[in-house]
Every structure is written in C-alpha cells, then in structure tokens.
C-alpha cells in the first residue's frame, strides 16, 4: 500500500484513522505536558507555563472536537453525498499527527529557558520551525475535509477556510468556558 504524507486518506479513514489519530493525540498531549507546549486552539500551539496533564488533555480535546463539529456542519451544508461522522472524526484526528513534532520541538533549550514574554533570535527560529508541522497539519485537514464530505473546487477551498476560522473561534470560546 502506497501512502503519501499528504494524501493517506485515500487508504485510511473511519475507525482505523480514529484509533491511530487518537493514539497520536494522546502521545502529543503527554509530550506537550513535559515540554510545556499547549494546543489551546484548532490551529494553535504555544510554549507556555507548566499545567496539569488534565488541562493539556482538555485543550487538545477541544482543538480536535471544534474542527470535527464545524466540518460536520459544513458537510450538511455543502455536500450532496451521504458522509459518515466517523470519517470526519478519524481523518481530522489523524491530521493532528504532525503536532507531535511541535510538542517535541518544545523541548528546544531556547523555549525551555525562555522567560515569560521574552523574544530573541533563538526563540524566533524555533517558532519558525514549528510553523512547518502546522502547515503540514492544515494540508492534511484540507484533504480530510474534501475526502470525508466529498466536496471539490472553489466550494471546497472556501468551505475549508471559513470552517477552519469558525473552528478556531469555537475552540477559543470553549477554552474560555472550560479552562481559563
């Protein structure tokens, strides 16, 4: 089976993607707990102060669930196909796999030794490196979105961008409600 790092949903979706994706989410949450990287938004990753593992887990759960809920809603509005909720939940969970790299980058001394609010060249460089896995995740999310609800072309691009912005807003609202 030929798997691409960007288009593996041609071969993996549904319950299998959900199990693998949840495995990555749990691993990322644990690594993030030790490296103090918080996934406190649909697209967010911040190096911050130490928190309990339950806070890290809840933040990551909110980040995943927000995208799943908004993309499911987008599916009802945009898609003419009969799509399955488990495909959206599974493919989006798997799309978050690159966040494990972000959690690992959080161990970089430049971030670990940084004082609150400090910005220097090393921190800027590490932050820049963190952007690449996030772009990878967004690409995977787009493929998850188009494969799971079967939308193409302009409708897919606009639906994805609007959906992702709404998911980001929803995740921030949920973080405000349950964590802050």
């Amino acid at each position, binding site marked *: 089976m030929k798997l691409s790092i960007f288009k593996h*949903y*041609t*071969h*993996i979706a549904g319950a299998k993607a959900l199990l693998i994706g949840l495995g990555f989410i749990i691993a990322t949450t644990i690594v993030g707990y030790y490296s103090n990287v918080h996934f406190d938004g649909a697209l967010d990753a911040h190096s911050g102060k130490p928190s309990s593992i339950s806070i890290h887990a809840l933040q990551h759960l909110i980040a995943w669930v927000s995208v799943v809920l908004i993309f499911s809603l987008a599916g009802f509005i945009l898609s003419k*196909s009969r799509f*399955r909720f488990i495909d959206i939940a599974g493919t989006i969970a798997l799309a978050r796999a690159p966040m494990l790299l972000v959690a690992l980058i959080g161990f970089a001394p430049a971030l670990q030794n940084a004082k609150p609010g400090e910005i220097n060249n090393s921190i800027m460089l590490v932050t820049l490196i963190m952007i690449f896995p996030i772009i990878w995740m967004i690409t995977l999310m787009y493929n998850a979105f188009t494969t799971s609800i079967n939308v193409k072309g302009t409708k897919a691009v606009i639906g994805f961008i609007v959906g992702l912005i709404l998911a980001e807003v929803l995740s921030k609202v949920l973080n405000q409600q349950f964590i802050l």
Partner: protein
Amino acid sequence: MLKTNRKLPELCPSCSSTLQVTSLGCSSCETTVSGKFQLPALARLSPEEQEFVVNFVKSSGSLKVMAQHLGLSYPTVRNLLDDIIQKIETNEKS
C-alpha cells in the same frame, strides 16, 4: 470474434459530440440493422468506471467490501461512486 480489447468510443473524435450507434450487425448471417440508437448509460462510462460498477455489483452493493477489496478507504470508494452517479445523471440530461 475480435480478441483485441478495443475501447468503445463515447465521443466523436472530430467534434466531441456524444456518439450514437447507427448500425448493428449479425456476425452469423451478416444481417445489418441500421438506425439511430443511444448508447446505454453504462456504455457511456469510461472503462475504469465500468470496472468500478462491475466490482460494485460483485460486492453486492457493499462499499465496505469494495473498499477492502480495492485497498481504499470507505469515503474514497463512496466518492468514486458519487462521481459515477453524477456522470450518469449528467449524461441522462444531455
């Protein structure tokens, strides 16, 4: 009978309009029937799409079985089916 696996042409190579059957012949007695006949809906699909439909029927219409058989994910197989349905509906309107 021809043993070569020739592709049934769907579109006119000159103007790209949909082709029609204008002649049917009996290879046994060489009787020829002429007229204008529409190609059946399935014959207007590409060979790959026709193979998909055959596999779908062989799988008793189960997309899960087809997905396992083809080594593809369920939504990918469902999307292929949706594309074929859309093509058939478009062909029926034209």
